[in-house]
């Protein structure tokens, strides 16, 4: 890992709590999280009070905080898995690291605990290289560089604003895949960070990510809620939607997205087969979303993440919204999110 000094004042760690007793989760992450500020957002459906061990610097946000800030009409935007976006909203720091509460620290190939904070921040603080593929992966990594044939004019790269980490043990597969292969567990630690090339879309997983809130905060938004969205990742697609939006924004603004390290270890939870009983709304929707985003063109006037998101919302309403009512609502949610985002920013 390259030597990047991390200023803890620049980092917020946002956790959405679906379990009231966070003791074991927090204890596992203590060696890595203890020097950072945590924003814990409680799932509005959770009735019990959160149990958090001592020795952490944290703020908790509950349903009442969400209701107060977002108002009753918009509070639904922050329900379920999307409650963590409330954490992104109220953060005042530059970098956000966000993981699901069913993850533990992973071990690398040497048996050492993976420090996801250091790795994510390193990813965000070193340039991304979306215009040309480097076959030795991240050229800024210690022991690597740009290979022969890599144009010199492209070697300074662009700012990386999104770092997508991966998962050992229970990988982020959809319910059909995990049901077909119930024994499938990811045990392969791939020692690489790489930039997702420009104009290439990818499925962003909310389980383990980090981003530059100052640069792209408005684009990480809660918008696509499946009708039968549940409390398991298999039953959501909100992060996938968000990733398509963020990538479109990044490609337009020449910002970078990295994927690969760091890994977290994802624990067993729920049954993929049970999730199969719910409608495969998300799976069907992806077939339309991908061609839509692949053909999306933003105007040269859109020079900020906010203006890009505004244009995307309008395009969604005009295009996808016509044939899918749930997507018309998505466009409205995106606009509502931007309004709240602006409001919260203006109070700072």
């Amino acid at each position, binding site marked *: 890992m390259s030597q990047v000094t991390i200023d803890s004042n620049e980092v917020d760690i946002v956790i959405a709590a679906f379990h009231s007793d966070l003791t074991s989760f927090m204890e596992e992450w203590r060696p890595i999280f203890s020097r950072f500020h945590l924003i814990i957002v409680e799932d509005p459906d959770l009735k019990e009070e959160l149990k958090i061990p001592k020795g952490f610097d944290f703020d908790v946000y509950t349903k009442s905080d969400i209701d107060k800030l977002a108002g009753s009409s918009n509070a639904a935007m922050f329900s379920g898995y999307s409650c963590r976006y409330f954490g992104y909203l109220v953060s005042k720091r530059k970098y956000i690291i966000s993981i699901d509460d069913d993850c533990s620290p992973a071990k690398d190939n040497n048996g050492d605990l993976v420090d996801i904070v250091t790795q994510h921040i390193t990813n965000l603080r070193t340039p991304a290289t979306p215009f040309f593929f480097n076959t030795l992966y991240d050229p800024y990594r210690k022991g690597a560089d740009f290979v022969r*044939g890599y144009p010199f004019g492209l070697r300074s790269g662009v700012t990386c604003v999104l770092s997508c980490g991966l998962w050992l043990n229970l990988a982020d597969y959809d319910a059909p895949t995990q049901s077909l292969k119930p024994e499938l567990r990811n045990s392969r630690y791939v020692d690489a960070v790489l930039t997702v090339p420009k104009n290439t879309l990818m499925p962003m*997983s909310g389980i383990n990510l980090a981003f530059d809130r100052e640069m792209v905060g408005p684009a990480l938004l809660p918008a696509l809620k499946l009708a039968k969205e549940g409390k398991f990742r298999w039953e959501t697609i909100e992060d996938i939607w968000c990733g398509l939006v963020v990538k479109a924004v990044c490609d337009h603004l020449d910002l970078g997205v990295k994927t690969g390290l760091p890994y977290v270890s994802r624990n067993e939870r729920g049954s993929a087969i049970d999730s199969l009983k719910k409608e495969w709304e998300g799976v069907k929707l992806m*077939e339309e979303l991908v061609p839509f985003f692949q053909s999306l063109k933003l105007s040269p006037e859109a020079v900020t993440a906010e203006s890009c998101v505004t244009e995307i919302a309008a395009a969604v309403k005009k295009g996808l919204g016509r044939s899918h009512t749930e997507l018309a609502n998505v466009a409205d949610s995106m606009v509502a999110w931007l309004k709240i985002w602006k409001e919260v920013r203006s109070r700072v």
Partner: protein
Amino acid sequence: MSVPATTVIPPLTDELDIVIPTIRNLDFLEQWRSFFQPYHLIIVQDGDPTKTIRVPQGFDYELYNRNDINRILGPKASCISFKDSACRCFGFLVSKKKYIFTIDDDCFVAKDPSGQEINALAQHIHNLLSPATPFFFNTLYDPFRDGADFVRGYPFSLREGVTTAISHGLWLNIPDYDAPTQLVKPLERNSRYVDAVLTIPKGTLFPMCGMNLGFHRELIGPAMYFGLMGDGQPIGRYDDMWAGWCAKVICDHLGLGVKTGLPYIWHSKASNPFVNLKKEYKGIYWQEEIIPFFQGVALPKECTTPQKCYIELSKLVKEKLGPIDPYFEKLGDAMVTWIDAWNELNPSADAAPVKKTDAAPKKK
């Protein structure tokens, strides 16, 4: 090793040729014996044709030196580089097999982190015989690999993938750096084993290294021309790069896939960076214009074969890159010559019978 989830049965001994350019000797083959011996080798001897290249016993091979190249191609031999490993593409031309694996003579067997020797050829075969996924990025890399799959959010309609045309392997020890980087970091060695195979997305170019490369000759062979390099040319060490840019643009157009990652080989020889700098010098700044050229290439719908794509590309090269230097006019012409030679030596099944080349190559 990266093994596909569904078993890939034949090792393709009758369908794959190994092409090796060499100017010194082929002692390195001793280390590869257990992996390469079942296969047919095509040796392209560069440099002095009067020198005898010793091939270790027990290998089935054809060997071509410059005299053979001139004899077989006649005036078309002008498109094959001299005193540069770019001459290897002559081996692609004369092969009659469906797949090619090409490797440099300073590349040895690497070991994976568990200490096991890596059969690079077998890995390339796995890569070529399993689909690529260029239209949407899979964050868990090769979804067809044993122990992996497509992640949540990956559109089901894209999960069949496309045929893999190129398998680009990597190198441990001496990394493939350009001369300036070699000068700045003479001691850097690549010791990081990245346990992944991934598809390079559609629309993204990459620097293709010819040291450890496999490809589907029938699907993309005509695009694997390694250009005019070496003796009498203003540029060197851009042969594989040139082939890679052309081939990627054509693969993207024809809906074929390009993979990179495993297998690793052990690259033992660090070339002289000062010599390299002289060779690469022009390429380093020409590249700044060449890349935008390739990024902007749009091949017409009518180009449905790699040959047609390549001829079209040759016209664009002359038109758009010609103004940079007369070299590109020559290169464009050489690209056409290459295709002529390709079509002559590789007539399609329904074409009229082509005149056979007269003398036979040296054979063991």
